[in-house]
């Protein structure tokens, strides 16, 4: 599903985001990427989302070379990916329903189909009764769940999450991770960037450890 082959990312100011990073992730795998601030976690996610391109090396996502992808193809690539942000990136002037419906509206689905899929995504994150509220009316944990619902509503093959539990208390963090595991059980590849080692250790999934842009560990969390 994901293949990094000697992928490096260097910025014009001389900063190196990633040093010749190589790893593979299978379809349907659940993996964490961890490391301190500046380790390269966000760079890795940005490369997968084609927000940036590798300076060298080969990055393949489901066979597609993201170093060679043209700009017109990027939106279609992103339609195969769901993204969850630490700060949720919700639109506060739209209802919960309309936030979640956004990827489906972009796909141009019918209103009935959108309603059906949004309802099922809301059910998955246990927010069915909040559909007509605005994000500002919700708690931080609920907002994060709205973000997750938006990320899965279009049934992506890959789900990326950048510090999804960064602002949450341990109970809520565990709850959110449970949602990710549910999604993964249905076949979606899940990649989560997080520095919450305690939480990761409890989950017992594969963990990639980055340090200053280099891969220094690749194994099951908690081992």
């Amino acid at each position, binding site marked *: 599903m994901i293949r990094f082959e000697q992928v490096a990312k260097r910025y014009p100011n001389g900063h190196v985001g990633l040093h010749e990073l190589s790893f593979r992730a299978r*379809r349907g795998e659940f993996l964490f990427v961890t490391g301190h601030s500046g380790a390269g976690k966000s760079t890795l996610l940005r490369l997968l*989302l084609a*927000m940036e391109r590798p300076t060298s090396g080969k990055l393949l*996502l*489901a*066979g*597609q070379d993201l170093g060679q*992808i043209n700009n*017109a*193809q*990027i*939106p*279609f*690539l*992103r*339609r*195969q990916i769901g*993204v969850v942000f630490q700060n949720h*990136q919700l*639109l506060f002037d739209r209802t919960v329903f309309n936030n979640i419906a*956004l*990827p489906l*509206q*972009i*796909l*141009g*689905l*019918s209103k*009935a*189909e959108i309603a*059906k*899929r949004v*309802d*099922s*995504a809301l*059910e*998955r994150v246990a927010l069915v009764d909040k559909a007509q509220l605005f994000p500002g009316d919700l708690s931080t944990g609920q907002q994060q769940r709205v973000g997750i619902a*938006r990320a*899965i*509503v*279009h*049934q*992506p*093959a890959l*789900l990326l999450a950048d510090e999804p539990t960064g602002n949450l208390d341990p109970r809520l963090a565990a709850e959110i991770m449970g949602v990710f595991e549910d*999604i*993964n059980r*249905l*076949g*979606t590849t899940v990649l989560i960037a997080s520095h919450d080692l305690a939480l990761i250790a409890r989950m017992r999934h594969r963990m990639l450890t980055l340090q200053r842009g280099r891969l220094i560990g690749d194994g099951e969390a908690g081992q």
Partner: protein
Amino acid sequence: MSTTRSPKVSERVAPKGADPKPGKNKRGASDDDGPDFRTLMHAWLESHRASLLDSLRRLGKQPIGSLFTCLVMAVALSMPMGLSLLLKNVERLGGSWQRAAQISLYLKLDAGTREGEALRDEIKGMPGVSEAEYISREQALEEFQQQSGLGEALRELPDNPLPGVVVVTPSEVDKPALEALRQRLAELPRVEVAQLDLVWVERLAAILKLGDRFVFGMAVLLISALLLVIGNTIRLHIENRRTEIEVIKLVGGTDSYVRRPFLYMGALYGLGAGVLAWGILAFSMSWLNDAVVGLSGLYGSDFALAGVPGSDGVSLLIGAVLLGYIGAWIAVARHLSELAPR
């Protein structure tokens, strides 16, 4: 997985209740084949409908701001359009302007009334001629006697010294065309001299040219101002929706999807401005007309300003919508590259 195809259903996570069977998926007959034409067409139309409604809703949310933007654009539109309408009216006033370009054909002294009238009829049928009037030798003498105050002296002359004249009114006031017409008329039999008062024609042409250039220059300036106004307004809308645009791009929105609501917004601003400009012009022409009718009455004329012709009004609306659309396009094109997700 191709970047342009939906992933297979088995590759996806299915939200609860979603139908995992490809054949029943409303996005297309089969996910493996990608969406069909009907689905794509529906998606495209739905996206346009949603963009239009969204733009209308956003304009409606700020009615005063939207109205003022439309008013500024309407004023910018109505000034060159109003001047153009005034020029058209001046040209229409134009019997008198065209008379300044009349060609006088002095006939040979031995040409009789019948020959003069036959010549007049022949000239009336010529291309480039609007009107032709024959003045016989007798009429010319009588007129001259009355107007010159030399009646007694002229009566002492043994013969009428004045020739018959055919006064030709051309259909258009254009110097080269007039000169060509004069030459053609001069070659007619029984014509002694063909005289064209080119000084007046040149003055008239110069005045009209000046007016046209003034209107054109003003139109260019004000249209530029209008594009800047719409561009700046759309830029502010883009700034206000920066987060939304970044999110849309991250979840797979194309540039055209992002651009669409702003283009509709520009076109709607243009439409509003066009309607207001039409109203401003209609009111202004009607208001000016009272004074013009009073003035022309003093000169014994029944001249009145024509209002805004329907065709001009429709052109104004179409032009305003296009300008709004183009202004929005320029603004979005300039700022879209800055809106890459961060």
